[in-house]
């Protein structure tokens, strides 16, 4: 009974949210979104009403979230990796065309001055335009320019918005977003051809025309004054001297991004350097934290040592601190000029500004952050080794050192090696560990983007959003796919290797 009520309540909430979202999509003519919404809502209803569904009723919520927030972003990254998506190519082709038209637009010399009323229909902006000569009233939007037959005109001579449209209120007109969309609005006029109405202030507009126009029939961009047809190359219009016009649009470039990682020296140089350092960093981090943690675990996990509980509680603290805070604090500690570390040891080590020392810093700080983790898992693994094994070996005359190296360590390695692999995979992509500490710096001469301590993931991040002169999102996505294959490959390989080890023993 309770189950049925809960189900009705749940489906009721889902369906009403879906209807709310559906009306919104309907108004903004988003048909694809509407189809997806309908499919999703139907699936949810079916799964929780039908009596025959078994696994899906448990898996559906997680799966929907997984598709929206993990699988879709991954597919997006994968498709972007095969495109030229970047600062210079981030719009659609039609947006690039209207941008070129807009860049060459000028007011028609003898344009009449139209009086306008800015309106909207919930989704797009429009203008109610009064022709000063004929006194006819038109409704203009970016799609069309149509005459309004029998317009309602009030006593001040201002026409009312046609049905389905609403005039903007005074307050709405003051908002920045409305003003931008109004100033960017190009209303194409039917006659004369290639002429547009553009807003000059909130009550008046003029005729504009552009020297560069789009020929819809031949699907190309042409300059009227000399008839030059702009050729297109890799998602951009090319002018006479061969330069690509900004902005370009996003096109598929196939394997170009992947190929340039291998062949283009400008990309390959830093990529190989960063790749090597990524492996070194992940390896050193795992090894140093493991050795330190293991040594502590072996030393402190001795029945004679008093206060072991207290030791464990204390040593766990660096691990319990939120990682990003620790990293930011360490970045302050290691500051060359006024950091604690150089003050404490009265040294002048360029911890964060010298390529070598910056690398040392990243590993050292990660040691501080990570050794408690290794200490804890090693302690756990040692304690789980049955005491009988060591006793039996002792009976057989094994020396303590032999017990350690021949019994305890091999058993311990079997237990912790999956965790070491996990730790390697984690540190291979330990963005915060690098980015919050050194920011990837100090800079290196061979690349304007990749610094000395950048690992692949931070390098990729910088390529995607921080690069000073144009972000190469397509290349960044290609590299992140390579990262995925490297991490997945290394993990799968070592997991099967360690499983084989386990079977052997």
């Amino acid at each position, binding site marked *: 009974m309770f*189950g049925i009520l809960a189900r009705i309540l749940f489906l009721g909430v889902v369906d009403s*949210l879906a209807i709310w*979202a559906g009306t919104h999509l309907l108004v903004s003519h988003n048909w694809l*979104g509407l189809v997806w919404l309908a499919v999703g809502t139907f699936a949810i209803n079916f799964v929780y009403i039908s009596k025959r569904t*078994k*696994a899906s009723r*448990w*898996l559906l*919520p*997680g799966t929907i*979230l*997984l598709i*929206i*927030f*993990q*699988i879709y*972003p991954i597919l997006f*990254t994968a498709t972007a990796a095969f495109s030229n998506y970047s600062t210079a190519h981030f719009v659609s082709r039609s947006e690039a065309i209207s941008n070129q038209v807009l860049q060459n637009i000028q007011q028609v010399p003898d344009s009449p001055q139209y009086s306008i009323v800015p309106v909207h229909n919930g989704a797009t902006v429009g203008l109610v335009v009064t022709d000063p000569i004929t006194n006819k009233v038109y409704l203009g939007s970016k799609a069309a320019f149509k005459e309004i037959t029998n317009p309602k005109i009030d006593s001040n001579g201002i026409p009312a918005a046609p049905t389905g449209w609403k005039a903007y209120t005074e307050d709405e007109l003051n908002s920045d977003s409305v003003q931008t969309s109004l100033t960017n609005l190009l209303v194409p006029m039917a006659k004369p051809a290639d002429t547009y109405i553009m807003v000059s202030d909130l009550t008046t507009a003029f005729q504009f025309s552009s020297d560069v126009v789009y020929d819809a029939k031949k699907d190309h961009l042409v300059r009227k004054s000399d008839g030059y047809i702009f050729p297109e190359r890799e998602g951009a219009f090319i002018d006479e001297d061969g330069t690509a016009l900004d902005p370009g649009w996003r096109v598929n470039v196939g394997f170009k991004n992947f190929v340039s990682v291998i062949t283009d020296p400008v990309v390959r140089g830093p990529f190989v350097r960063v790749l090597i350092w990524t492996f070194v960093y992940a390896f050193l981090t795992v090894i140093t934290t493991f050795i330190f943690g293991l*040594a502590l675990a072996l030393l*402190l996990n001795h029945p*004679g*040592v008093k206060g072991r509980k207290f*030791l464990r*509680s*204390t040593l*766990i603290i660096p*691990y*319990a*601190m939120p*990682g*990003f*805070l620790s990293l*930011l*604090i360490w970045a302050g500690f290691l*500051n060359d000029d006024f*950091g*604690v570390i150089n003050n*404490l040891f009265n040294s002048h080590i360029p911890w964060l500004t010298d390529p070598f020392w910056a690398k040392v810093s990243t590993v050292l700080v990660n040691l*501080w952050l990570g050794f408690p983790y290794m200490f*804890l*898992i090693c*302690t*756990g693994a040692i304690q789980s080794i049955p005491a009988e*094994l060591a006793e039996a*070996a002792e009976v*057989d*005359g*094994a020396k303590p050192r*032999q017990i350690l190296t021949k*019994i305890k360590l091999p058993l311990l390695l079997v*237990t912790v090696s999956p965790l070491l692999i996990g730790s390697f995979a984690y540190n291979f*992509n330990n*963005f*915060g560990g690098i980015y919050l500490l050194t920011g990837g710096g100090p800079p290196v001469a061979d690349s304007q983007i990749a610094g000395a301590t950048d690992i692949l993931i931070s390098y990729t*991040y910088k390529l995607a959003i921080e690069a000073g002169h144009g972000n190469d999102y397509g290349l960044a996505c290609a590299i*992140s796919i390579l*990262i*995925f294959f490297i991490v*997945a490959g290394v993990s799968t390989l070592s997991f099967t290797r360690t499983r084989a080890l386990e079977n052997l*023993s």
Partner: protein
Amino acid sequence: MTTEAISNPTSHAARRPVKRRKPYRGKLWWRYLAAVFAITFALLPIVYVVLAACNPAGTLSSLNFSIHDFGLDNFRFLFGKHDLSHEVTYENYPFLLWYRNSLMVSSIAAILQVIVGTASAYAFSRVHFKGRRLSLGGLLLLQMFPQILSFIALFLIMQKIGAVFPFMGTGTWAGLVLIYLGGAMGYNTYLLKGFFDTIPRELDEAATVDGASANQIFFKIILPLATPMLAVVMLLAFIGLMNDFILASIFLTKSDQMTLAVGLRSFISGRYESSWGVFAAGALLAALPVVILFQVLQRYIVEGLAAGSVKG
């Protein structure tokens, strides 16, 4: 390897009579030395953070800390009782509001994550369906994809969601909860599935014989047995979310929607000046609940770590 070491002892050692030795105490001092060294290494940085936090002119270089420098102005500022300058005011840096946002985002997301994850884990552990192994493997593989670049796709999704439901679009903490929920089917599901597998199937079978439905088995048998584990997974998720910096810093830009992670950083990359003292004080307060949770849950966390969960 181990069996070999035991069954093939050196021949003369086997014949030697065995004395039960007491663990010797003579060489304990160097174990304590190691303990002192490790504790110094672990705590020294934190001592400096405390010193910086308790110094109104706090920097991370103040070595010559004297009792005259001691003051709690940094903390008073964070609680809105004291403005540091006419620009560094509580209005610009509403620490308590960030704290509330952080606790709210992390706890709501952690609870929902565990609910969704538990349901999925139950299906993976108990319901037989085609492609179960495959989808479980795929789930693990998905977690290896570097998600750092997915923020552009996430941005586009959140804009669309925000257009329909403005209260959970980009820049709102409710939207951030939604993004965090995307991770509900991940390592947590895997951990919980492993735990459900340890609950004997005979229990389910007996219940089925008695006429219990799948729902009843889940709610009346599995859930009560798994409650302690669920609590631990939830708290681990909570800790992980409290510590998230990257996603939060990308999506939260308005001061009143920020979480601790994003807000605290503005003290040291701030518009006006970097205030390391305030940052240190805030960091201590932010770390407090997490460190306490770690101490209380130590035993379970160690078990969770051994099962393969990694702190994010």
